[in-house]
C-alpha cells in the first residue's frame, strides 16, 4: 500500500452541537467517523452515500478546508494532516465543486478565476496568458472565453472552467465533489467524458463523490459507500455493483430508477429501505444502519460491526458476515 498517492487513516471530524442558555457544547455531530481510504496514482475512487453521510466533509478535510479531529491524511507517503494549509500540498491536491453556478465568483472573469492559483503558486506572470489559453483549450473552450463572466456561460461551460482552474497548477489528485449533480444528463455526459480524457492525458487521480450510483458504476475504479460518517462497504466497481454485500448498499441500489430491463435485472431483489436517515448528532447504538436494516437482529443493537474482508478488494461492515453473530439471522444471498 506504500505506493498510494493518498491514504486516509481513521479520519474523523466532529462538529460541536451547542444548546441551552449559554450555548454550551452539549454533544457532537460525528460527521465523519474513522474513515480509512486509499487512492493510488491515476486511480478513480468513488465515494457514494446519501445526503449528510459525510462525503463532503471527507473531501474538505483532504483539501485542507477543514482540519481532522482525529486520524491522518498521508499524501505521497508524507503525513500532511498537520500541514494541510501549506502551499506545496495545495498545489498537488485540487478540488472541483458540485455547483458550477456558485463555484465561480460572479464578479470575476474566467481569466481572473484562473489567475488565482497561478499567482499563488508563483507562476511567472509573463506566462499567464499563454497558460490560460492552454488550460481553456484542454477543457475544450475557445480562448475568447477568458474574458467572459460566469453569467455568460452555460452550466457545462462553467464546470469546464472550474475544472480548468483545478488543473492550473498541475495537481496529482483532484477531489470532485458531486461535480455534475447540477447538470442535465446530456451535459453531464460531456463533462464526465472530459474528466476521463484529462485523467488519461495527465495521469491524475480522482476522488469522485456522488450519490448517483449509476454514474459511479461507470466512472470509478473502486467505490466506497458511506452511511452516517462511516464507510459501510468498499470494493471495486464490479464487487460493489455485481455483488453488493452490505444491506445498505443493496437498499441503495434497489432505489435507483433505471431505464432498461437489463439494469433492472442487476438490482438486488431486496426489499426497499424504509424510514429516514437518523440524525448524525444522535447516532443509533451498535450498527448505525440497524434502524433501517431489514435484517437487523439483537447483536446489531449492541455491537458496532467492523470491516469484514470479503476479498482482497472488497470489504463490508456488517454483522451478517460474521458467522458467529449472524447464526440466528438468515444470511443474505449474494
Amino acid at each position, binding site marked *: 500500500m506504500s505506493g498510494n498517492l493518498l491514504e486516509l487513516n481513521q479520519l474523523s471530524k466532529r462538529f460541536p452541537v451547542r*444548546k*441551552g*442558555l*449559554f*450555548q454550551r457544547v452539549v454533544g457532537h455531530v460525528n460527521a465523519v467517523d474513522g474513515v480509512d481510504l486509499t487512492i493510488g496514482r491515476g486511480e478513480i475512487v468513488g465515494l457514494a452515500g446519501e445526503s449528510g453521510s459525510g462525503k463532503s466533509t471527507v473531501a474538505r478535510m483532504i483539501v485542507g478546508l477543514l482540519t481532522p479531529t482525529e486520524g491522518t491524511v498521508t499524501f505521497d507517503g508524507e503525513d500532511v494532516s498537520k500541514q494541510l494549509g501549506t502551499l506545496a500540498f495545495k498545489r498537488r491536491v485540487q478540488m472541483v465543486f458540485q455547483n458550477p453556478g456558485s463555484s465561480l465568483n460572479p464578479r470575476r472573469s474566467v481569466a481572473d478565476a484562473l489567475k488565482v492559483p497561478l499567482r499563488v503558486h508563483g507562476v511567472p506572470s509573463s506566462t499567464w496568458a499563454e497558460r490560460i489559453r492552454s488550460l481553456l483549450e484542454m477543457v475544450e473552450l475557445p480562448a475568447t472565453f477568458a474574458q467572459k463572466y460566469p453569467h455568460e456561460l452555460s452550466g457545462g461551460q462553467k464546470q469546464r472552467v472550474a475544472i480548468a482552474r483545478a488543473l492550473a497548477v498541475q495537481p496529482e489528485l483532484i477531489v470532485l465533489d458531486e461535480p455534475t449533480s447540477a447538470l442535465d444528463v446530456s451535459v453531464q455526459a460531456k463533462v464526465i467524458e472530459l474528466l476521463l480524457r484529462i485523467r488519461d492525458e495527465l495521469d491524475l487521480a480522482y476522488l469522485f463523490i456522488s450519490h448517483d450510483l449509476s454514474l459511479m458504476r461507470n466512472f470509478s475504479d473502486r467505490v466506497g459507500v458511506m452511511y452516517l460518517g462511516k464507510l459501510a462497504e468498499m470494493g471495486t466497481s464490479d464487487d460493489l455493483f455485481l455483488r453488493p454485500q452490505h444491506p445498505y448498499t443493496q437498499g441503495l441500489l434497489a432505489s435507483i430508477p433505471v431505464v432498461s430491463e437489463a439494469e433492472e435485472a442487476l438490482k438486488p431483489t431486496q426489499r426497499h429501505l424504509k424510514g429516514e436517515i437518523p440524525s448524525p448528532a444522535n447516532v443509533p447504538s451498535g450498527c448505525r444502519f440497524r434502524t433501517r436494516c431489514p435484517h437487523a437482529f439483537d447483536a446489531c443493537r449492541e455491537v458496532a460491526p467492523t470491516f469484514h474482508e470479503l476479498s482482497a478488494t472488497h470489504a463490508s461492515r456488517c454483522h451478517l458476515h460474521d458467522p458467529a453473530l449472524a447464526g440466528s439471522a438468515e444470511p443474505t444471498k449474494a
Partner: protein
Amino acid sequence: MEYLFFVVRRLLWSVVVLLGLSIVIFTIARVVPGDPARIALGPLAAQEQVDKLRTEMGLDAPLPVQYARYAGGLLQGDLGRSLLTQQSVNSDVRQTFPATLELVLATLILALAIGLPLGVLAGRYKDSLFDNLGRFVALFGVVTPSFFIALLLQLLAGYVLQILPVSGRLSPNLEFEANRTGLLLIDSLIAGRMDVFGDAVRHLILPTIALAAATIGQIARLTRSSMIDVSRKDYIEASRAFGIPNRITTFTYMLRPSFIPTLTVLGLEFASLLGNAFLVEMVFGWPGMASYGVRAIMQNDFNAVMGVVMVTGLFFVLINLVVDVLLGYVDPRIRIKGSQS
C-alpha cells in the same frame, strides 16, 4: 425550552448592550467641556463654591472610579442627579417619560394601522393604481424630515385651518394630573374626565401624525416587498393550487409570513422613531423625555443626558425584546428551534 433560552439569552445580552452603552455615553459625557458643578451653581457663583460642589459630586475622583460609581448607581436604577432641575434624573424621567411613551405608542398604533394595510394591499395589487399611489405616499413619509412634517402640520392644521392645538399635551386651562399610568388618555378615562380625554386626543393628533409618517412609510414599504416576496413562494402557489380562495391566501397565508421581516425591521427602526421623537417633541412643545433630553444636551447637563440616553437605550432594547417574543409567536421556526446568535 430552546425558545425560552433564546429569550433569556437576549435578555442577558441586552444588559451587556446597555452596559456597553453606558461606557460609550459616559465617555462622551466626560469630554463635555462644561464643568457640571459650575452649571449647577449658575453663572455668578464663586469659584470656591464650585470647587466645593465638585468634590461633593465626586468629580475629583479618577474617571474609572467615577464610572464605577455611575455604573453601580445604574445597576440599582439610580441615574444620578440632574444639574439643572436639581432633582434626581429618575424622577425627571418618571415625570417626562409617560408623555413620550404616550406619543410613541400612539405613533406605533397609527403607523401599524395605516402602514400595514397599505403595504398589504399594495403588495397584493402590485403595479395597480393603488400600489403606485401607496408607494408614493410611503416614499414621502420616509424621505420627509419629521420636523418639516411637524412644521407643515402646525402651519396647516394649527394656523391656516385652526382646528387643532399646535403645542403641548393638554390645554393649560384644564386641571388634571395624570398620576396613575402617566398616560393622559388612560388616566383621564379612569378618572372619567371626558373633557380631558378629548383635549388630550386633540393635542396628540398632530405630533402623532408627524412622528408616524416615516414609520408608516417604512412599514408599508417593507410589508409590500415582503408580500411580494412571499407571493412568489412555493407554498403560496401550492395554496392557490389547492383551491384556497385568493382572499384567504392573501390575508392569511401571505400576511403572517410577510409580517416577520416587517416586525424584525420595525424593532430596529424603532431607534429612528425615538430619534425623530426628539425633533417632533421640540416642535410641538411636547413635555416628554425627548424635549427634556434635548434641553439637557444643549445645556450640558451630563447626568440628565446620560440618563436620557440610557433610558432611550433601555426602551429600545425592551421593544426589541417584545419584538423577539412576538416573532417567536408569529414564526414557529424561531419558537421551536430557538435562534442562534
